């Protein structure tokens, strides 16, 4: 593969990365992207054709240097003019056309890259193109939250590393040998694989650094670029009959992570706003103004409801719950599988940018609906009102993440003063249509009485109404129009079919008629459970409404708002069931959003605490191990002492003997070490083969005498191999020669030959073994 081919491949890869990054910018229209893609492909095709021409260097147009320079200058001028035009276009785009920086800048960069693609002449041009691609990546980072960004970034890392290495080597080579062509052989498959390995290493380091880089949270220009989701499923004003179409909208509204990723047995409710005033057609909120909540010393908002006397132990809060919720008869399953009574459960909610400032608090059935204890998130203010609805200062224009700690089941709101319910009259008010229209009003009253007949307390009455509605009415998203004056009449007496709003409105009115304060609550029900990520995926279609009733406690119990849901299960569980693949992809998206996009200082604190806990565990383990070693040693010592100390006189003798033996052993050991050291020091640089030769000759009876030089010894022995080996030895030992591979092989051969030779012990003083009479000259 020729060098130019590498450049072509890298350029294609880089341009593709830049294009992918541009595609991630949400504000760009598909038409522009198609245009840019087509232009890039055309240009790349031209470039590939030019580069593949034989004997054409990337950086060398034909002609003499002067012509070459003039041509390059000309092209550069053309590029500069076009770049200036593109910049003017960018300014016009930003100030007059799109008026968004991300879109205008991305368009500008894409056009700039396209212009540069038609002007790739020198190395500098390539560097400029790659720099533009880098800025395209930054542009994408500034305007997207898509997990595909990571794929684009990975592709960029691979191609950028490849490009930088190749261009750097090219430049170094051209500097040292300007007239030569770089040998393409060095950029083979092995080189590419090494680059790939390096890129993966770089990505691993990138992730490690990403999580370690301190998040200051002092941003002046926080990102607010996500498009907001129009939440037609949820509003602070509910008009009966408007929700139906919404129940088919699969737009994701939020994700709710449950503790330990284990699905709770009961339905999850996400409480939004509570509405108290019904005018016969629609629900509104009338009661009271907003009240600002204060952050506690942990930086979290605390519930204005009386806090349980929390006992803090190792980070978990164990509230002292004097009483559970009011006794609610059967019909509701027992509490959360994980959450025993009084346990704090922490839900993590990732809310898409919605067009409402209301935020949602999770809870299960049966529970005190307003039983949240703490909310923490990246917002500075939180407001509440008399109906315990929670508001941000403004609708969030970016995805927000917050955690809600819920007391499961929660304490009642009205206990111990605190935010005691001052005035329950708004929750008992009946719409004029119900009060004034005699036939309907009478019918509703009668129905209410009929349902609650026989029920003892408020709680039992409420449960009776709930179960009546659940069993006697049909759930449909498309209720018929009946002969009733109002939608409520239609539902209760004529068509007897409807969806959550009809059910909950009916229950509120029936309860109010029975003298139980009640209100309608809007929010979302649990949605789709995603087992891959351990969270609930809440969509528009999961919009729901239910009822909260104020239940007076029995003498031993306390009073408070209790959640009831008269809608049959068919209305709560959405029929929509996505494919496992899409759930898995959504869990990836969730993780990306949760751990990358939403990664924050508090996450860092959590991680560091976890590490600290692990480290302290390790410390404790080391301590225990050391202690056990110490104990073991003490036991051994005591045992030895017990053996050695039978009596006083014997003790001394034994000790003396022990010390003498120990000293003798130490002396012998030290002497051995010294001897060994001396022997080692004698021939520090003697190569192995000479030692082998001496050993083999020694076994045959040729001993080297002390004052004899190696050469004299070899001559005395008169073995040709010994002579050759001695020469090699002299070269290495005294000449500082490093044997080449061939010489090493020769030495090995000589040693082998010497070993195989039948050397016989010399007779008398004659060294020369019989059978060898090679003269050494």
């Amino acid at each position, binding site marked *: 593969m020729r060098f130019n081919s590498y450049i072509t491949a890298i350029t294609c890869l880089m341009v593709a990365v830049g294009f992918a990054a541009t595609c991630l910018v949400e504000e760009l229209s598909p038409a522009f992207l198609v245009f840019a893609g087509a232009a890039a492909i055309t240009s790349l095709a031209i470039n590939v054709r030019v580069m593949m021409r034989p004997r054409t260097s990337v950086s060398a147009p034909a002609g003499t240097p002067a012509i070459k320079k003039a041509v390059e200058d000309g092209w550069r001028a053309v590029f500069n003019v076009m770049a200036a035009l593109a910049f003017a276009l960018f300014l016009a785009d930003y100030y007059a056309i799109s008026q968004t920086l991300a879109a205008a800048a991305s368009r500008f960069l894409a056009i700039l890259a396209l212009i540069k693609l038609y002007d790739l002449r020198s190395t500098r041009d390539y560097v400029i193109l790659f720099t533009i691609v880098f800025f395209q990546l*930054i542009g994408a980072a500034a305007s997207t939250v898509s997990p595909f960004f990571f794929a684009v*970034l990975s592709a960029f890392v691979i191609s950028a*590393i490849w490009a930088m290495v190749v261009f750097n*080597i090219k430049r170094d080579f051209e500097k040292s040998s300007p007239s030569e062509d770089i040998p393409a052989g*060095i950029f083979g498959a092995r080189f590419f694989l090494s680059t790939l390995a390096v890129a993966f290493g770089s990505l691993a380091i990138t992730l490690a650094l990403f999580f370690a880089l301190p998040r200051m949270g002092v*941003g002046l220009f926080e*990102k607010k670029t996500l498009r907001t989701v129009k939440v037609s499923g949820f509003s602070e004003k509910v008009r009966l009959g408007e929700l139906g179409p919404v129940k088919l909208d699969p737009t994701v509204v939020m994700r709710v992570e449950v503790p330990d990723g284990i699905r709770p047995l009961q339905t999850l409710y996400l409480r939004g706003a509570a509405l108290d005033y019904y005018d016969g057609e629609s629900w509104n909120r009338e009661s009271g103004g907003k009240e600002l909540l204060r952050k506690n010393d942990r930086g979290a908002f605390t519930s204005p409801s009386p806090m349980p006397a929390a006992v803090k132990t190792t980070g978990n809060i164990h509230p002292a719950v004097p009483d559970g919720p009011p006794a609610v008869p059967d019909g509701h399953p027992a509490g959360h599988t994980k959450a025993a009574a009084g346990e704090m459960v922490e839900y993590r909610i990732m809310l898409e940018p919605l067009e409402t400032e209301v935020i949602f608090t999770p809870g299960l059935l049966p529970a005190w609906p307003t039983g949240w204890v703490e909310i923490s998130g990246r917002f500075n203010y939180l407001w509440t009102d008399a109906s315990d609805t929670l508001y941000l200062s403004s609708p969030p224009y970016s995805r927000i993440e917050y955690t809600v700690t819920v007391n499961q089941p929660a304490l009642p709101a009205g206990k111990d003063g605190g935010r005691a319910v001052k005035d329950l009259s708004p929750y008992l008010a009946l719409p004029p249509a119900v009060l004034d229209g005699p036939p309907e009003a009478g019918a509703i009253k009668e129905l209410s009485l009929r349902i609650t007949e026989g029920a003892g307390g408020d709680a039992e009455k409420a449960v009776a109404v709930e179960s009546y509605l659940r069993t006697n009415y049909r759930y449909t998203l498309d209720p018929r129009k009946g002969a009733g004056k109002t939608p409520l009449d239609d539902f209760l007496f004529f068509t007897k079919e409807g969806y959550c709003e009809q059910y909950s409105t009916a229950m509120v009115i029936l309860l109010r008629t029975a003298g139980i304060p009640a209100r309608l609550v809007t929010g979302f029900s649990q949605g789709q459970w995603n087992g891959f990520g351990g969270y609930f995926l809440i969509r528009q279609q999961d919009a729901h409404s239910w009822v909260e009733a104020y239940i007076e406690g029995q003498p031993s119990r306390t009073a408070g708002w209790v959640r009831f849901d008269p809608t049959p299960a068919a209305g709560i569980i959405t029929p929509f069931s996505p494919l496992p693949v899409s759930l898995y992809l959504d869990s990836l998206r969730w993780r990306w959003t949760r751990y*990358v*996009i939403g990664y924050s200082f508090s996450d860092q604190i959590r991680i560091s605490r976890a590490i600290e806990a692990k480290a302290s565990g390790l410390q404790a383990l080391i301590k225990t191990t050391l202690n056990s070693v110490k104990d073991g040693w003490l036991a051994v010592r005591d045992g030895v002492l017990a053996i050695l100390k039978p009596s006083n006189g014997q003790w001394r003798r034994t000790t003396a003997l022990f010390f003498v033996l120990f000293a003798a052993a130490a002396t012998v050991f030290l002497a051995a070490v010294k001897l060994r050291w001396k022997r080692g020091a004698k021939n520090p640089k003697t190569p192995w083969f000479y030692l082998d030769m001496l050993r083999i000759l020694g076994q045959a009876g040729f001993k080297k005498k002390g004052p004899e030089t190696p050469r004299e010894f070899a001559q005395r022995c008169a073995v040709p191999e010994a002579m050759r080996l001695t020469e090699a030895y002299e070269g290495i030992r005294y000449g500082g020669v490093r044997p080449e591979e061939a010489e090493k092989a020769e030495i090995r051969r000589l040693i082998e030959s010497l070993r195989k030779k039948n050397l016989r012990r010399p007779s008398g003083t004659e060294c020369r073994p019989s059978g060898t009479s090679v003269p050494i000259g």
Partner: protein
Amino acid sequence: MNLRPTISAPLPWLTILAAKLFGKKNGKGKSQVKRPPFFVFPRTLEFTKEGKRFIAVLFLVGIAAINTGNNLLYLILAMLLSLIIISGVMSESTLRGLKAKRELPRHIYRGTPAKTRIVVENTKRLMPSYSFIVGEMRSPDAVIAETAYFLKLDGGRKAVKTVSYSFGKRGVVRLAGVYFKTAFPFGLFVKGRREPALEEMVVYPRVRPLRPEETKVPEAPSAGTNAARGKGAGTEIYGLRDYTFLDDARLIHWKASARTRRLVRKESERERERTVLVVFDNSGGGEAFEDEVEKAASIASHFIGTGFRVGLKTLSFEIAPGAGPGHLTRILKSLALVESARNEGRHSVHDGPPGVRVVYV
């Protein structure tokens, strides 16, 4: 009361201590020797132009990430930082395990480029080293050495490049060591590693072409009076002897060889009058001194090159006349080391031996 013993006993120690504490640091003797620095970084690092731009972009992205709190910008920031780390690791893997050896020519003349072989070995087993240069560490002896560039050197392999060294000083010159530098992998930083490779050599004075008046053979005081005795490189036949393989084939006396049927060579008489004594008055000093040394070396080289026996006489030493390249080496070596003898108290060398041509420098 006699206090003297108690006072005098610590005095020498006190004096030594005071001298150590308050004595001049730049005095003569040991303190003039420059101490090696306490700590030297094992690697050097320089930013390239691209590296500076990279760091500037890194800072910009960092500021943008902090200001916007955008985690994707943090991701890009982490990616840029990881590139720096990867760059450090890869450049280290290139520099580590490299060993260089220089093979200088036997005769080195001041100011004349000496072709030197740089032998580099990659002692790593597997990892190749990419795109690095080998150069000579800065020397106080005014050595200018070219750098040798190696594109790729596989693990366990050797490579050789020939570069030229230029020495700006005659005499004993010390080369401290070599350095390896690389901008690999990304060209953002140039990392360097020094390898001490101490080598001392004698640099001869420059031998320049002589001007015509300098090449003039001087008159001997008693030219032609004595006959030459003994063998030599003269023109007269001295005798014949058997040819050996060590002899120049041009010296074979073909007629005598044909006559005797064995190869016979002729031997010439020694030309006693073709002896030149270069008298170098090294009592001078200053800048002219080097020129004079060079002139002496050039004259000696010229005359030996044209077959003269050349001797050298200076105020400090004397070399008896001799011929051949070995003798020239001896003279050049002596001239490489010659120093001004201004302070030695001698006044003249201007008395050459009788019957020898004398060139005064």
